[in-house]
């Protein structure tokens, strides 16, 4: 099962993982990751803009690539857009497989690519002012791990 969605409203990761896990009763391993807007640092809000013709197709290609690289039974990939507040989930990735290594690696792979190789632009509001979040060198280093 490939469940890839771009969401414009807040979502509950627990409400998502439950049906996803139930859809794969044959699985031996489920790895998942949830990234949230970090409270603190004075950030009042985060805005994610994207380019519709590329964003969701890019997410679908990424999920397909994970399923091609690892023997997965399913991939869940959800990403928010729009205005988000501290504590709200931004992204959720989960992978189910027979064994743990595939589930772990696929989840890690999808997260690394979402961070650096997908079509989201983020800005944050601090003290009432919006500022763009710049690319981080760390993310490109993470991405290089997968280039064998």
């Amino acid at each position, binding site marked *: 099962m490939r469940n890839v969605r771009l969401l414009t409203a807040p979502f509950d990761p627990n409400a998502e993982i439950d049906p996803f896990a139930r859809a794969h009763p044959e699985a031996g391993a489920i790895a998942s990751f949830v990234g949230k807007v970090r409270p603190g640092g004075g950030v009042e809000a985060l805005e994610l*803009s*994207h*380019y519709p*013709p*590329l964003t969701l197709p890019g997410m679908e290609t990424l999920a397909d690539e994970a399923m091609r690289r690892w023997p997965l039974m399913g991939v869940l990939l959800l990403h928010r857009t729009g205005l988000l507040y501290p504590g709200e989930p931004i992204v959720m990735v989960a992978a189910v497989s027979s064994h743990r290594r595939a589930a772990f690696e696929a989840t890690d792979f999808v997260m690394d690519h979402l*961070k*650096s*190789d*997908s*079509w*989201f*632009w*983020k800005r944050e509001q601090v003290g009432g002012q919006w500022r*763009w*979040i*710049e*690319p*981080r060198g*760390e*993310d*490109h280093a993470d991405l290089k791990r997968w280039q064998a």
Partner: protein
Amino acid sequence: MLKLVFLGRLEDLAGVGEMLVPLDGGQTLSGVLAGLPGDLAAALQGPKVKLAQNGALLPPGAEPVLADGDELAFLPPVSGG
């Protein structure tokens, strides 16, 4: 007419997310850029800005042939983190 789409900080610089421009500068990218404010035109040609024509990513350095009704998107580096 050509629809230009500005993403990320390019939207701030342009002051709008989308802009309709005439194709009377020719059917080339440089013709279109010549009709824009100089600082915006320079930013759109930045080495890390990618282009998509009608929703399809163009290879770096591509010189697209533009047609009436086309959508041309300017995509700066994504944020990561």
